[in-house]
């Protein structure tokens, strides 16, 4: 985690500034103590005396200035000293202020740079992950990590780290200053320190396991909400609002309960820390008071002691805060780096070559596939698809249709066997060059919240507008787009809500047409569109399929009949393979499927 901030040179600057500001802040109590001693001794008829403190250095400056001022303003040395000593508090605060400002500002820059780097690293990792990663992750959880957890780390880098250094340094400086004033009183006031440490430690031990739980539950809430919003149309469509509300409220209540347990601990320990430090103050007052009475110490020294201790109280209480912050940051860091360091299971082999121009022959050789390494989803698939051929893939839900098409662009890698394009194992070429030759149209394509023009030219950089229009025309979406007020520059609402399913699909077809790939994958398994749209999509598809090696998952009879051959999957294995006529003649699964399809479309009267 620290690896993210250590490289910055600013870190050294912050350290240097902390040292200087800490030294400055230890000066003040001694000066106040001396002022008290001075006015006290004059009030009781004594002389102007200066106690020999640690801050000799300050006195070398302050005394001559006082003498000069007393002479110049024609006032007594006592008043001159009082004025100069008191005023020096403002000078010190101003100096300290300028340096502290620099320290804080630099610290912000460092922590912001660190979180910038972390978010980029996280995002880069997300881009590299294969589909198996996304099968396991929920978007909401990912989002919570990218925002909440990174923010947590940012705060730690900014505040926690600076405070930790500051506190340790201040403890050392104050201890030193106190010992010089009176070592016995120092020991008395330090009695409480071990107790304070013990309490802080106990606190962080109790709280640490809970923090991860809290953040995790927060992530759950986020993802429940996310899913609800993303699927808002489904929720409304099925009138599941009450169920959704109940689900959300259960998770929110759980979050509340975890928080309350933490609250109880926190509410006890924070005041406890104050109580313990207060005991130290009382000890100073009582023991120091007795010392003054017996003449062993001046009132000013006791006052200085008191101020030193109060100065420590804030940072020491901060210590507890920092410990808990450290614990929280650790949990957050774990969650962030889980993503950043997530292993990429599909990646370029070392020395992978570029896949140059291809004919489009696709071969499956004894291909087996499993998501979890145990249950085989595809079993011993053998296929040899010639350039330009169309293969229709049929089968029940879960028979492995989607798995087959996801293997070709390497969204997953085969578990056993191999897949070849033009005789080259796809694992021997770079993923990027492989995907360049493959076009994919999904049944529910993702439409980005940008202009239609950019959505269509998504796969092609700097595509000319005529090319885009041409693709749109071929996909039969041009009339719709040109009818919009901003034409091709119309922005699409998020997740394409303003486009109908058929329109989205045609935009995706235009996208694929513009890319002009040799190999085409169509996932069209459960289209539920009206006849007119069906007709239009069909026309667009015909345009798209021409001269390309095509894998198509569909229920459209017209598409199936046109296929060069059909494979029927059952439990991950190829059950039937052949042309429409061949399979109809065999009277097997395909025959049955065809009958039900036709009946569904025509109402049984064929």
């Amino acid at each position, binding site marked *: 985690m620290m690896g993210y901030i250590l490289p910055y040179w600013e870190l050294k600057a912050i350290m240097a500034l902390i040292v200087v500001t800490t030294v400055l802040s230890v000066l003040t109590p001694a000066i106040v103590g001396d002022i008290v001693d001075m006015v006290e001794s004059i009030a009781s008829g004594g002389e102007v005396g200066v106690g020999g403190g640690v801050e000799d250095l300050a006195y070398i400056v302050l005394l001559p200035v006082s003498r000069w001022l007393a002479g110049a303003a024609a006032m007594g040395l006592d008043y001159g000293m009082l004025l100069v000593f008191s005023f020096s508090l403002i000078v010190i605060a101003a100096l300290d202020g300028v340096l502290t400002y620099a320290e804080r500002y630099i610290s912000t820059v460092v922590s912001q740079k660190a979180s910038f780097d972390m978010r980029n690293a996280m995002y880069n990792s997300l881009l590299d992950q294969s589909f198996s990663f996304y099968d396991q992750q929920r978007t909401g959880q990912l989002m919570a990590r990218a925002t909440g957890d990174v923010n947590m780390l940012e705060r730690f880098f900014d505040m926690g780290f600076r405070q930790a250094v500051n506190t340790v340094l201040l403890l050392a400086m104050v201890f030193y200053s106190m010992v010089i004033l009176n070592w016995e009183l120092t020991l008395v006031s330090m009695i409480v320190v071990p107790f304070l440490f013990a309490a802080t430690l106990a606190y962080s031990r109790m709280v640490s396991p809970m923090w991860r739980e809290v953040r995790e539950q927060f992530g759950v*809430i986020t993802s429940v909400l996310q899913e609800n919003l993303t699927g808002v149309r489904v929720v409304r469509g099925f009138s599941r609002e009450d169920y959704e509300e109940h689900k959300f409220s259960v998770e929110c209540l759980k979050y509340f309960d975890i928080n309350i347990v933490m609250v109880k601990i926190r509410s006890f320990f924070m005041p406890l820390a104050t109580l313990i430090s*207060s005991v130290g103050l009382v000890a100073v007052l*009582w023991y120091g008071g007795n010392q003054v009475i017996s003449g062993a110490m001046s009132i000013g020294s006791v006052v200085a002691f008191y101020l030193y201790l109060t100065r420590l109280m804030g940072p020491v209480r901060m210590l507890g805060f920092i410990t808990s912050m450290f614990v929280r940051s650790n949990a957050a860091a774990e969650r962030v780096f889980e993503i950043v360091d997530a292993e990429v299971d599909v990646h370029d082999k070392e020395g992978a070559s570029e896949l140059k121009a291809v004919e489009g022959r696709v071969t499956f050789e004894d291909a087996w596939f499993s998501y979890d390494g145990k249950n085989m989803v595809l079993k011993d698939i053998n296929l040899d698809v010639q350039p330009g051929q169309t293969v229709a893939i049929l089968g029940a839900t879960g028979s492995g249709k989607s798995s087959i098409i996801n293997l070709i662009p390497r969204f997953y890698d085969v578990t056993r066997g191999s897949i070849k394009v033009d005789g080259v194992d796809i694992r021997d070429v770079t993923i990027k060059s492989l995907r360049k030759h493959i076009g994919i149209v999904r049944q529910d394509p993702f439409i980005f919240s940008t202009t239609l023009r950019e959505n269509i030219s998504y796969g092609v950089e700097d595509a000319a507008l005529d090319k885009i229009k041409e693709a749109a025309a071929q996909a039969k979406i041009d009339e719709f787009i040109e009818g919009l007020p901003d034409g091709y520059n119309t922005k699409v609402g998020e*997740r394409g809500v303003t486009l109908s399913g058929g329109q989205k699909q045609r935009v995706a077809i235009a996208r694929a047409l513009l890319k002009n790939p040799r190999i085409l994958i169509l996932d069209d398994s459960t289209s539920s569109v009206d006849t007119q749209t069906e007709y239009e999509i069909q026309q667009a598809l015909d345009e798209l399929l021409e001269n390309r090696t095509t894998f198509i998952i569909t229920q459209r009879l017209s598409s199936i009949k046109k296929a060069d051959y059909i494979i029927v999957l059952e439990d991950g294995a190829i059950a039937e393979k052949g042309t429409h006529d061949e399979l109809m003649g065999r009277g097997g699964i395909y025959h049955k499927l065809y009958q039900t399809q036709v009946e569904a479309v025509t109402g049984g009267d064929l």
Partner: protein
Amino acid sequence: MEHWAGDDDYDRETPDVLLMRRMLGYVTRHRRKSLTLFAVLLVSTVVSLLPPYMISLAIDEYITKLDTEGLLLIGGAFVVVYILIFVTQYANRYLIEWLGSRLEYDLRMDMFRHLQQLGLGFYAKQEVGNVVSRATNDVEKITELVSTGIASVIADLFTLLGIILIMLYMNWWLSLITFSIIPVMFLFLFLWGKRVRKVYRETRKTIASVSAKMEESVSGMKEIQSFSRESQTREEFQQVNRNNMDANVQAGQVMSAFWPAVNVFTAVGNFLVLWFGGAAVMRGELSVGILFGFMNYVNRFFTPVQDLSMFWNQVQSALAAA
């Protein structure tokens, strides 16, 4: 909440009073706990104001008069007061945090219910990431405002009033001299707060864009990878991410000025006490105990003012969230 549309709406100005009243409405849902909290706050404020005055007493009445027995006695009194402070602070914190967590729950559920009733047109215009960011991160922020905010504002106002009364009682003319710094402080806080509000809004806007961009990428990852758009998307994300960093650095610039400035103000306050009060001690018109007690109260006096302005700043950030 009915009106929130796009990003641009972050600049919308809703009367603060209205929003405050709305959020206070949530607190009154738990009336009994709120009232108990109020009472506990009062007691805790009063007891925590005692120690400095007791120290003045210890110095003037016992230490300078060489009374060891009296010193022991007042030492015992200190212990009793500190235990009282502990107990009231415990009750105080627990109630505050309980109410805060409860409010977070209430607010989140209300928002969710409202989202369930909004027309689909709303979802056409809103980015899911943006809405989620509001319902999660922003709700947390508002809660922070109420739990650490409203309660501590009440406590701070009591403390402030208490300190002013004690100081006036101890020495009225030295009090008036010391109070002269307050208007300057409030002027600074006012001007500073205005800047803070502006930079905060900007950071909320930019982090929402980061969320939205990431959310869109994750949802559209299949398309991104199918079309090998990784490097372009990466650049786009870095740009959004960089904007967020820049906005936060700018906010840091403004925020960093706060504590140094407050420390200088405190130092000026101490200077006034020591210079005028110290001179009075030398002339025999003031006791050392009172002088020290004054310094203690002056140092405490600025803490609630700091808190109040920190709260003001939190209000700014929360109002941007409501």
